[in-house]
């Protein structure tokens, strides 16, 4: 870890915390991205406008960065078939568990919710085990 990595990690984290605080203060909402995105396709949800606005802000940040600042390094090395399985697991799992890295990992843990702490420990552990198994046995 270089000094720059440490600074950019901390500064990036501060921005994420600030983003969640903006949504909490103005919208009284939790910045859980899986929940916000999933709400877009629930026909009984009447509040799709703010959800769409959030997602547009999120996805526009990358092209905006490239336009104003520079390159972003993103690489996906996972085979497409595995991405399908992973996507299904992330979609279904976040709904069943009521959150992902943002909703439980950031927002829930910040208010010291026991559920979010349990969920975070669980998904960190299973993700770590999965990476270990894939790297050593596949």
């Amino acid at each position, binding site marked *: 870890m270089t000094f720059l990595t440490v600074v950019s*990690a*901390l*500064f*990036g*984290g501060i*921005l994420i*915390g*600030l*983003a*969640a605080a*903006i949504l909490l203060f*103005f*919208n*009284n909402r939790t*910045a859980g991205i899986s929940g916000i*995105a999933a709400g877009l396709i*629930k026909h*009984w949800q009447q509040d799709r406008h*703010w*959800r769409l606005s*959030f*997602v547009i*802000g*999120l*996805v*526009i*940040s990358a092209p905006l960065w490239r336009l104003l600042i520079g390159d*972003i*390094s*993103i*690489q*996906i*090395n*996972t085979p497409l078939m595995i991405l399908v*399985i992973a*996507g299904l*697991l*992330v*979609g*279904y*799992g976040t*709904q*069943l*568990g*009521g959150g992902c890295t*943002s909703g439980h*990992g950031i927002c829930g*843990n*910040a*208010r010291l*919710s*026991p559920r979010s702490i*349990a*969920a975070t420990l669980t998904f*960190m552990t*299973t*993700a770590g085990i*999965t*990476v270990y198994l*894939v790297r050593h046995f596949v």
Partner: protein
Amino acid sequence: MNLNLSAFASGLTFGLGLIVSQMINPVKVLSFLDVTGNWDPSLALVMAGALLTLGLLQWLIKKSARYRLATNKTKRTLSKEIDAKLITGATLFGIGWGLSGLCPGPALMGLTSGLSGSYVFVAAMFIGFLLFNILHRKH
């Protein structure tokens, strides 16, 4: 402030945070999850930065009159129980995250980064959302 404008600002700031911290990059995320390999612990600092910032700001927000007024109008009850659904869901999410290095935020941001893998992942993720809606009808 307009609710859509603030949601947009929040999404944009969130995205910038994921870019600055490099959490947008699945390869970087996987090297954080690879504890026994060539471990890159920097993503723990992302979480620390986010938790400290949000922790401090939400303490201030919850003291503000505006927030108290808003919560009186829309009282939300947050479930406190750690049940099988929570743990099963988190387990499945963790496996998917570990297989791909993608969680919902960075996956959505891949859509505007020209990565075909992101389209496949996001499509599957929405099918996963839909599957949950069908299997656990709550409406």
